[in-house]
């Protein structure tokens, strides 16, 4: 029954922790040179599935299966000793973010060399040359130097390459990649996916785990959609994307923002975003609420000062979204901090409603601060951990003019949370709920402008879709202006009226969102557009 090139065969795999079954009766297979993707939201059991294939489901887990074989070896009754022989030699594992997935205290040469030391009789000298070879094969620019560096000394893309090198060191027939590109910029993500496709073309079977259908559609041959520990739908990637049978799959597909026009909801069957009531976003006559003029900021560094923001100017009109897009380190967040007057600019100024803002003394600026709200990527660390949601929102709404204050109930309702959330502490909320609370907090002070700094980058695509829809709706209802910062071009394009593309601290291209992305003038913009993960490629 099993085809000769089947690499991984799983029948009836169940995993439970105590009385809770997190993976239920899973069956699938992966063949040589094939990439199979498991897609689902956080908590759907996809990572546990991946780890149980390595015998690493974790302490307190019970794993049962009727068939579990890798490269013809039966593993249903494997002992810890058997597993250790399989791991690394037969199955390689690539995790998210090599900053923490490679030991930060050890040079990466040692980390990669460990696989060789554990499974092969290579001498130290031969192992070293093999490690250099591996690093070169994953596209590390300077392997001789890289083997002495630690994960913290490498850029995100390079350390992820090193992590992949350690997983494929012994050329295992099966590679499991668990969210391998989730923490990366789009352009680096595209390169890492190219690298995985390259590994696949050499005959390695890949099991790819992700919450983002767009990412997997680039290289997966088949997709398994997982929800609540079960596979709810599976099939050939292109067929599944073209003709999803399950409502859940449709939600995952719909959540991908790339190429979704502005104001089209990302959550299927949601109410359409109402037409803007205050000002039309196309209205060039809408008043300018925020203006940045020639902002410059540099940081001291051992050699010469590092120019993080270099002569950045833009305007933001009422009811409009200006998208600020660029890779990490391009200066986007520094711009956000300057706009919020959280850091002093070396040169230039931020004007609020035509008046001075960044140049005011802090005491004079304080009454104006409420007009510029902020939403951050890591909302949890922006909350006082001891305060409950009611405290957080009450504190924030006291900044609003007395006559114009929201109640906590109104705020929760505005962001689609139930009143019961008021009693909860942020730590006990889900990522999506936290980000909604953070939006409610920004709304509480009755701002005109909200600076959104990577507001959805830490969220699953389906949650991201809900939050983006919410931001869209609030903007239309309240005439808010957004300075929307993201590295994800798909998100920026879906959310922005106008965009500014940042690279090395400078704005290299700016203009109407549709114009910039359909006809990019700067080669960097063109590169960003090409690297954005999209579903249409697969169709």
């Amino acid at each position, binding site marked *: 029954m099993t085809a000769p090139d089947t690499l991984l065969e799983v029948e009836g795999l169940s995993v439970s922790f105590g009385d809770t079954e997190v993976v239920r009766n899973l069956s699938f297979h992966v063949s040589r040179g094939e990439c199979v993707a498991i897609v689902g939201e956080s908590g759907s059991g996809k990572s546990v599935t991946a780890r149980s294939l*390595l015998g690493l489901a974790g302490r307190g887990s019970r794993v049962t299966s009727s068939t579990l074989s890798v490269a013809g070896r039966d593993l249903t009754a494997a002992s810890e000793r058997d597993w250790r022989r399989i791991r690394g030699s037969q199955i390689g594992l690539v995790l998210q973010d090599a900053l923490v997935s490679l030991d930060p205290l050890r040079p990466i040469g040692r980390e990669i060399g460990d696989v060789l030391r554990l499974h092969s009789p290579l001498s130290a000298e031969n192992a070293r040359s093999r490690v250099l070879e591996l690093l070169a094969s994953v596209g590390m620019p300077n392997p001789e130097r890289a083997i002495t560096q630690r994960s913290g000394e490498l850029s995100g893309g390079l350390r992820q390459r090193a992590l992949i090198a350690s997983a494929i060191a012994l050329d295992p027939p099966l590679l499991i990649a668990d969210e391998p590109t989730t923490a990366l910029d789009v352009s680096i993500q595209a390169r890492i996916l190219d690298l995985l496709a390259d590994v696949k073309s050499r005959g390695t079977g890949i099991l790819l785990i992700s919450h983002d259908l767009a990412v997997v559609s680039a290289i997966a041959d088949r997709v398994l959609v997982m929800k609540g520990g079960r596979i709810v739908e599976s099939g050939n990637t292109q067929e599944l994307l073209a003709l999803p049978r399950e409502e859940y799959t449709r939600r995952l597909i719909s959540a991908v923002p790339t190429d979704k026009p502005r104001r089209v909801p990302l959550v299927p069957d949601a109410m359409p975003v109402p037409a803007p009531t205050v000002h039309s976003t196309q209205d060039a006559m809408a008043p300018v609420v925020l203006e940045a003029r020639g902002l410059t900021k540099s940081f001291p560094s051992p050699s010469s000062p590092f120019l993080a923001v270099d002569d950045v100017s833009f305007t933001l009109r009422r009811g409009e979204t200006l998208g600020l897009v660029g890779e990490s380190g391009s200066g986007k967040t520094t711009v956000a901090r300057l706009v919020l007057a959280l850091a002093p600019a070396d040169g230039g100024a931020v004007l609020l409603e035509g008046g001075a803002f960044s140049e005011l003394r802090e005491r004079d600026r304080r009454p104006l601060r409420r007009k510029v709200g902020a939403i951050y990527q890591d909302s949890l660390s922006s909350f006082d951990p001891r305060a409950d949601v009611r405290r957080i929102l009450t504190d924030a709404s006291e900044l609003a003019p007395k006559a114009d204050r929201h109640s906590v109930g109104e705020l929760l309702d505005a962001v689609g949370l139930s009143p019961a959330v008021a009693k909860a502490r942020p730590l006990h909320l889900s990522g999506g709920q936290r980000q909604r609370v953070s939006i409610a907090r920004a709304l509480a002070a009755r701002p005109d402008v909200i600076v959104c700094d990577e507001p959805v980058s830490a969220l699953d695509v389906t949650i991201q879709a809900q939050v983006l829809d919410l931001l869209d709706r609030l903007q239309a209802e309240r005439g808010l202006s957004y300075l929307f910062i993201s590295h994800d071009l798909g998100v920026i394009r879906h959310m922005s009226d106008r965009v500014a593309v940042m690279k090395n601290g400078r704005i290299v291209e700016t203009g109407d969102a549709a114009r910039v992305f359909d006809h990019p003038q700067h080669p960097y913009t063109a590169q960003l557009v090409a690297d954005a993960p999209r579903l249409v490629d697969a169709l």
Partner: protein
Amino acid sequence: MTPGSAGSRPAQRSRGFRGIRWLLVRLGGAIFVLWAVATLTFFAIRLIPGDPAEAVLGGPGSQASQETLDQVRQDYGLDLPLAVQYLNALGRLLTGDLGTSYALKVPVSDLLGAQIGGTLVLAFTALCVAWLIALLLSVWSTGGGRVAAAVGQGIELTSAALPHFWLATVLIAIFSSTLGWLPPVSTATPAGLVLPTLTLAIPLAGFLAQVMRETLLDTLDAPFIVSARARGESERGIRLRHALRHASLPAISLSGWALGYLISGAVVVETIFARPGLGRTLLQAVTLRDVPIVTGVVLLVALVYIIMTVVTDAASRLADPRLRNAEAQP
């Protein structure tokens, strides 16, 4: 592409420069601390009731005549204004002269030189033994399931709470009086070092093990441990190659403090085991109001403490390359 890949030479040079600057800052701090300690001790000791001149002549019971006392005051400069006495003392310290013991009439530096060896041997042995116990205990308690964790935690808490004088008495009662394995008085033999070392090491090991166990547990949950397991690394390899190094970082920075703790503990332990050393010297000097010795011991302990802090800082930087790199960033 990688930070610092272009022009790595200047980067190397500036790293060396940063190292030297780091050392100079530490050195300046050390001199300041020594000055502050000397000043504090000088004035604090004036607060002890009693006449120093009487102490020179053998204490209040000496029945010395007024002329003799005056003569002593003049010889030791005790009749001068306090500010002058202070400056004189500082001046002598600068030349490395710690003065002469009132009671024993020998230079303090000779006395301390003869005593410090024993105390340092005791303190360092205790530190090493404490590290060893803490390592074994934390590895065992984090690797052996729920029972081991509970037992380990209990041992840590209990031993950290044990007072030295009680522990010393119990150890003597068991190993000397009952079993007769070890001498109750610390002799110069290695066997004589065992009980004092254990007395000092056991409570410290409790502290260190608590810190290590916590970091060890955090580390064992880290993604890079999953990566290492997925390579086929054994449980022992995981601990030896990865987790223990992370777990030792906070314990290394604690060791500077620990040595200070051990030296003050030595006062009690050296007295109980009748072991010659700084601690016993200090205790006797305080009883006899022998000001120069007290000042000398306090300064010496401060110096050891400062050196130890610099050493542990350097050791932390060595064990954790991130500390060195962190300083390079804005």
